[in-house]
Structures are given as structure tokens and as C-alpha cells.
């Protein structure tokens, strides 16, 4: 309990300053603190796994932002599904807290010399909750379903698109042969399995198990009350290290402010929070008595995509100028209250691919104006907006209407551009409509957030020139032969250290080419009941790695001891 109380304390003070007039009465646990520290909270990683004595038993009450659409691991598409399935569906391989692949259902795996064939060997004690063994047949069945064109498997389909042969060798081992040699194929095996016997010969999309999955993990499914809750309990057939809680109860709760109240009231143990709730928590005595804020950085970041095919952004000088027109240091201070880091490439600073020696382009409106002049964008008709060959420098800056921080960032950017004679019209859009435009490459500029769903740093699908829409997702239409070559080299390179060097070289190119305006890696914020201990964070967040939430434990009540309060 060293780093966290400090985190909480500093966060508390920061928000105290912001809301000194907050309503409240009576003595407060936080009032003894005096503001001594004004710097940004020191956000680091948290590892409480060795602290305190874990308490066994009890219920962990977690929050889901939305209802899972399915509990079929192959059909999953969003965060709620992933959060629940993590307890019941063990994966072949897992990401550990340091982003490395670690054995899960598989005890070892081999890669052929040509780098195309993977042989995986299942653990002998891997079992389904009905006592039957997890077999190579289950693995082959699962991968074949993923590859079936009639089955929507948005998460896993791209990972096995290149697979050629998928077959069992014996009851506990199987092989997958890919058409190309690619070190990234290993990431495909961060894959949960389905029990073949429950699915074979039945309509895959409608099987009962899609809403009541058969477990091969530490917990098993108990019940799902639609739009209300999902309940899990310990799986007695689980042979690995057990979780500390007897039951896990997920509550579907769409609204952040309500989840915050549920937390302080005691019917929820954890919830994600946003900046405003973090500030509110810091001024809230009820919160301070029962709960704490956990804040850290993960691999997410945001950026403003520029369509490199547009005559506006095809010139690298223009793209660099736009990056230099965005006052990122002020945005970190103002918009993110200090808890964000400026990025200079398509990874977060905690990704192994990110080279911290690569300095970001500075905020420099004068140099940016010069770059725009040299690129031929001058205000020739005196209307306040730069133009070139009869075209005004104006464009729509699309964004998701659901993101408040994104919207504010867009407005700030548009205001800064306007001073440099560039007109950006901020256009918030409904999510599904927005995504359709972006993925089709039908836009000029768009504010996007990158949510890293795993630890694979491969930039190829997003930045290689062979991956333009509609076939791929290089939605910025970025093309640089030197970068292409490095991305190909990285895929062929099987030594992680050498691959990292290649990524670092790439990082410099991305910074110099400024294919998009890289903005920041903002902190993740959660609030927990104080009774919950054993938290471990990772660049993959609180949940996205193994064992993740399985290391958490909880005291039966929230009695606050002096040590735990401060």
C-alpha cells in the first residue's frame, strides 16, 4: 500500500483546489490533508499482489457499461463480453502484465523453422466444467468456426485469415499452418475455446451456450438477468490457481454518475470513472471514507486522423504544420489536468514499440505557418483562410458525439487552426455513422481514439500501404516505402529485441512523416471500494491481461483503519 494512497491523496488535493466550495459538513477523513503538492499525480503501475493478506470468499460486485451481446467467445465483439468471459473462458495463450504471451490452456507451443507452422500442446489437466477434457478437437473446431464465412467473428477472423491448414495431431495437440511467415501469428492464439460437443451439428448462432457458456476457467456461469446482471461462481473443476472470491456479480449500469453513487452506497465494488467524477470524488467525504481512486496509463491514445489522399494533407509539410499547431502541452494541463502524456507515434509510451528518445514535434505556430507558406498554402484572396490553386484550406473535422473529451479537443484544435488561417469545421457524429465513414476512408480529418485490445504492437494493418480501405484499415491512407519495408521486416523478425529496434526506427519515421496528428495517451481512472485489495495494473489496463482481476480479494466490510485511509 505505498503508491496508491499517494495517488489518491494527490488526486484528492488536485480536485480540492478545483472545487473548494463543495458542499459538506462534519469532520472528514480528508480534511487533515493540506495542499503541499501541485504537480500532476505520479501515475505509475500498481502491484498490490504481495501486499496485505488476501481474504478468501465473498462476492465481487463489478460494473458493466453495457450488456454483453453474447457469451460465445468466438462471437464476442466488445468490452462487456471480454470482461465476463475472462473468468469463464481460459485462452490458449494469455498476455501477462508485461505484454508477453504466456501459456494458458496450452502448456507449450512450437514454431516451425520457416515460421509458418504453429504446434500447440494443451495442458493435460485442462477440463470443461462438466468434467470432460479440453481437447485438440475443441481447438480445431473453434478455429474452423472463426474461419466460417457465415459466422461473424469480428475479433478473431482477421487473425486467422491467413491460416491454411488447421488440424489435430492427437487428442491434446494440434497444428495451424499459415500461408505466410509472420511473427505476429503467435498473437492469434490468445484465443478462448468452445466445447465442440455442445456446438457441433447445431445452429451455431443460436445454441443455448451462447448465453450460458460452458466454463473451462476459474469461474462458471450461474445466471444472466437481461439488462440487469450476470452472475458467476467458482468452477469446482478448475485445476489452476483459484480466484479469491466465491462469486462474481456483474451489474449492467450504463450511466457513470449512477455507478459512482452505487459505489459510495456500497452495492458496487469498482467502476471506471471520468475526469469530472475523479474531481468530484476528491471533494466527496463519503467517497473518501469508503473508496479510492486508481489511476494509471494503459496503451490507449488519441489522434486526429488526416486523410493523406486528400489534396489538403498529401504534403508532409502540411501534416507537420498541423501537428505543430496543436498546443499539446496546454491540452495536457488544461483538458487532462496533467494526467496525460504527449505521444509522437502510433503507440502509447508503455508499448515496447515506443521509443521514448523520439521527441515530439513542438508547438510552434510560427514555424508551422512557414511550413504552410512553403507548401503553397497562402491567403491570396485576403479572406482570412489560406488557399492554393483556388481551393480554400477548409475541411470537416469529424468526431464521435459520445466523447466529451474528444469534442473539447476538436474545438481547441479548430480554434488554434483558425488563427493560422486553416478552417476546420467540427462535426460530431453518431458512432455507427461515424465509424462507417472512417473505415471506408470517406473523410478528410477525424478525431479518433485508439483502444488497444491486446499487447500486439504490429503497425502493419493500420499503416502499411497495402492496407488501404476498403480491404484494410489504413484509414489515413499513409504510404511511405521506407516505413512499409520496416513494417514487413518487423513481421519477419522473430527475435523480440531486434523487432523492437525496427519499431524504434519506424517510430522516428512516423514522427517525421506525421501521417496523423498524434495527441496524447491519457490516464485510465477507476474507483474502488477500499475493501478490495490485490489490485495489479498493466499497460493492458486492470482486466486485459492474465491473471488481471483474479488477483483481487475483498474484506467483508469497509471498516477504514487509519493506515488504509491515508
Amino acid at each position, binding site marked *: 500500500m505505498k503508491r496508491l494512497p499517494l495517488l489518491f491523496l494527490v488526486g484528492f488535493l488536485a480536485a480540492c483546489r478545483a472545487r473548494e466550495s463543495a458542499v459538506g459538513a462534519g469532520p472528514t477523513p480528508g480534511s487533515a490533508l493540506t495542499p503541499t503538492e501541485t504537480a500532476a499525480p505520479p501515475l505509475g503501475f500498481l502491484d498490490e499482489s504481495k501486499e496485505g493478506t488476501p481474504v478468501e470468499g465473498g462476492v465481487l460486485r463489478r460494473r458493466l457499461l453495457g450488456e454483453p451481446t453474447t457469451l460465445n467467445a468466438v462471437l464476442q465483439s466488445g468490452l462487456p463480453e471480454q470482461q465476463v468471459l475472462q473468468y469463464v473462458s481460459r485462452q490458449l495463450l494469455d498476455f501477462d502484465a508485461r505484454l508477453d504471451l504466456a501459456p494458458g490452456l496450452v502448456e507449450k507451443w512450437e514454431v516451425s523453422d520457416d515460421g509458418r507452422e504453429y504446434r500447440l500442446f494443451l495442458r493435460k489437466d485442462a477440463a470443461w466444467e462438466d468434467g470432460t477434457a479440453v481437447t485438440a478437437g475443441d481447438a480445431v473446431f473453434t478455429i474452423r468456426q472463426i474461419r466460417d464465412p457465415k459466422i461473424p467473428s469480428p475479433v478473431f*477472423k482477421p487473425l486467422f485469415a491467413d491460416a491454411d491448414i488447421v488440424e489435430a495431431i492427437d487428442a491434446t495437440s494440434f497444428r495451424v499452418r499459415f500461408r505466410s511467415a509472420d511473427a505476429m501469428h503467435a498473437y492469434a492464439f490468445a484465443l478462448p475455446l468452445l466445447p465442440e460437443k455442445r456446438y457441433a451439428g447445431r445452429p451455431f448462432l443460436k445454441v443455448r451456450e*451462447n448465453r450460458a457458456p460452458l466454463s473451462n476457467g476459474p469461474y462458471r456461469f450461474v445466471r444472466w*438477468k437481461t439488462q440487469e446482471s450476470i452472475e458467476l461462481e467458482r468452477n469446482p473443476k478448475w485445476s489452476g490457481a483459484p480466484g479469491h472470491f466465491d462469486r462474481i456479480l456483474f451489474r449492467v449500469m450504463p450511466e457513470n454518475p449512477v455507478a459512482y453513487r*452505487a459505489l459510495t452506497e456500497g452495492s458496487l465494488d469498482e467502476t471506471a470513472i471520468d475526469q469530472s467524477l475523479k474531481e468530484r470524488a476528491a471533494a466527496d467525504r463519503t467517497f473518501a471514507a469508503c473508496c479510492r481512486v486508481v489511476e494509471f496509463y494503459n496503451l490507449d491514445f488519441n489522434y486526429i486522423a488526416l486523410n493523406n489522399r486528400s489534396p489538403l494533407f498529401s504534403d508532409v509539410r502540411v501534416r507537420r504544420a498541423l501537428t505543430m499547431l496543436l498546443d499539446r502541452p496546454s491540452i495536457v494541463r488544461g483538458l487532462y489536468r496533467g494526467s496525460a502524456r504527449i505521444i509522437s507515434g502510433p503507440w502509447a509510451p508503455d508499448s515496447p514499440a515506443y521509443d521514448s528518445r523520439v521527441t515530439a514535434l513542438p508547438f510552434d505556430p510560427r514555424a508551422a505557418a512557414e511550413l504552410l507558406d512553403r507548401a503553397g498554402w497562402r491567403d491570396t484572396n485576403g479572406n482570412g483562410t489560406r488557399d492554393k490553386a483556388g481551393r480554400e484550406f477548409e475541411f470537416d473535422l469529424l468526431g464521435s458525439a459520445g466523447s466529451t473529451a474528444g469534442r473539447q479537443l476538436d474545438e481547441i484544435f479548430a480554434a488554434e487552426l483558425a488563427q493560422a488561417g486553416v478552417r476546420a469545421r467540427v462535426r460530431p457524429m453518431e458512432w455507427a*455513422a461515424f465509424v*462507417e465513414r472512417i473505415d471506408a476512408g470517406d473523410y478528410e480529418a477525424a478525431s479518433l481514439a485508439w483502444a488497444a*485490445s491486446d499487447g500486439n504492437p504490429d503497425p502493419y494493418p493500420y499503416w502499411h500501404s497495402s492496407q488501404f480501405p476498403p480491404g484494410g484499415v489504413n484509414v489515413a491512407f499513409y504510404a511511405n516505402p521506407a516505413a512499409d519495408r520496416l513494417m514487413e521486416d518487423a513481421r519477419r523478425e522473430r527475435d523480440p529485441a531486434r523487432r523492437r529496434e525496427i519499431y524504434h526506427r519506424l517510430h522516428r519515421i512516423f514522427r517525421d512523416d506525421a501521417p496523423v496528428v498524434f495527441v496524447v495517451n491519457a490516464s485510465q481512472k477507476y474507483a474502488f471500494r477500499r475493501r478490495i485489495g490485490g489490485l495489479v495494473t498493466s499497460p493492458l489496463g486492470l482486466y486485459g491481461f492474465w491473471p488481471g482481476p483474479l488477483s483481487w480479494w475483498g474484506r467483508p466490510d469497509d471498516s477504514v483503519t487509519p493506515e488504509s485511509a491515508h
Partner: protein
Amino acid sequence: MVGAAGRLRDSGERALIRFLVRRIALAIPTLFGIVVVVFLLMHLAPGSPASAIGGAESGRRVSAAARAEMRRLYGLDRPLPERFVQWLGRVARFDLGESFVDRRPVSERIREALPATLALNGLALLLTLALAIPIGVAAGGRPEGPFDRTSAVMLFALYSTPVFWAALLLQTLLSVKLGWLPLYGVSSDAAPEGLAGLADRLAHLALPVTCLTYGSLAFVARLVRSGVAEARSQDFVTAALARGLSRRQALWRHAFRNALLPVVTLLGLLLPGLLSGSVIVERIFAWPGLGRLYFDSILSRDYPVVLGLSLIGGVVTLAATLAADIAAAFVDPRLRESA
């Protein structure tokens, strides 16, 4: 008078039947129009089930080509008229199809969410009427009197209070600070059986019902008030008072009955609300109802569910307005004649 009414009965009944037939005949094309508009709006709006996959929080990019493939899986590559005819064909066989999201029958998903919304909105409507009518009659009984003025100010204040704000405030006060009422949900985790279970459910209903009631209260109460105020100055009320009825009797038996007509019409408009659910209240109280289902289905472009709910909403709205018209026709014969 009585004899005249007897002679008129036959022609009156015929008029009523003619009126009913005409109204029902009108309802069918209206329903068809609603369905066509919803179908077109939904399918012509940008975005598709494929683009909504994963939701805003998932960082996965799916290529346009993969999305096109998914559209094919959903049958969305077929021409619009073909899809419409197919859908109509199924509806004619009372089949609303399957949800794109979880492949379960649309009717099953609606059935699941229906009880929560019915209970919530039904109670809210009853409470609204139970409060609004006495307030309206009392206020209309003495227009511009002290009760009329204070109730007007309070009702308008309530009416203009945003529900999300009031809901969060009530939650903080009554649930978090005082711990009197549950914060959210339809029942406790370990819901007790029998009477205690019923009490538990009612306690969970208290806050959302309050939030749904206070806004519509003003609406209905002011409507009743203006009706009563107007009727109060009419000759028949004066006559009733002159016959020696007390003010209360005159108000409730005569003035209020006359003010009932607009309320009945309004009920026709309020009843469909029983099914439509309230997105904001259901989201804030994590209430597993139709409002949330509708909202989520629109966001995920779950066309079959959206169409199913719109169809049911359309049918109920038309049925309720029809019922209100009929009720009004019984209450007020003039409407029958002019129909």
C-alpha cells in the same frame, strides 16, 4: 327528454357503428404509413449493424470489406423493397424476426423487457392521475385563488426540472445519504419471497416512478384545472349551486365531469407511453425495460428489434387513440354526430 333519447337510440347506434368502422378503416393505412416511414428511416440512416459492432469503447478497426461481408451475413445486401416485402410477409404471420445482435427472436427480447416497463409506467400513470385530478379540481374550483397560484408555480417548477438532474439528486439524497430507498434495479440481489419480495420491488419502484410522475403531473393537473375553471362559470354549475348542492358536490359532479373530456383524449395519448418506456429514467435506474432496449437497438442498428418495437408502438398508439375517441364519443354525443 327521456322519450326523445329513446327515439334517437337507433340512429345514434348506427352513427356510432359508422364512426367506428370509419376510424378503424383509417387506422390501417396510418399503421402502414408508420411502418414504412420507420423502415425507411432506419435503413437509410448512415451506419449499419456491421459498423456498430463492438460499440464506441472497442478499439478494433474492421475493414470496410469485412463490414461488407457482415452486411451480407445480415442479408443487408438485398435491395430495400425486397427486404421490406420479406419483413411484411413475416409480420403478417406474426413473426417479428430475429435480433441481429444476439439472434434471439425479437418477440422474446420484447417479452423480457415488457413487464419492467409496464410496471414502471403503469404505476407512474396511476399516480399522475391520482395526484393531478384532485390538484386540478381544487385549483380550478377557485381560479386565481391562493391554491391555484401556489400549485401553478410548483407544478411549473416541477415540469421544467430536468429528469436526469432530479433523478441523480434523489438518488444521492434518498439512497446514498439516507439509505431509505434502493439506488437502482428492479429488485435486490437476494430478493426475498412473498410479501417481503413485493415490498422490495415497490421500494425499487419508488424513485423511478417519482421521476416519471412529477413531470407529467403538471401537464394533466393544468389540463383538469382549466377544464374545471371553465365549467365552473357555466350556467349548469350555477344552477347546481342554486339547487343547494355544496360547492364540492357541484365541482366534482358537474364541473369535473365536463372537464373529463380533454383528460380522456389525453389518456389516449398517454397510454402508448406505457410501452414506449423512458430511455433516461431506465438508464439512470438501470431498469431493464423497453426504453433501454429501443435505445440500444437503435445504436447497434438492430433493425428487426427497432422495427418490432415501432410496430407494436404504432399499434398501441392507434388502438389507444381509437379507444379514446370512442370513449369521448360516449361521453359527448356531439362528436358522434359530427364524425
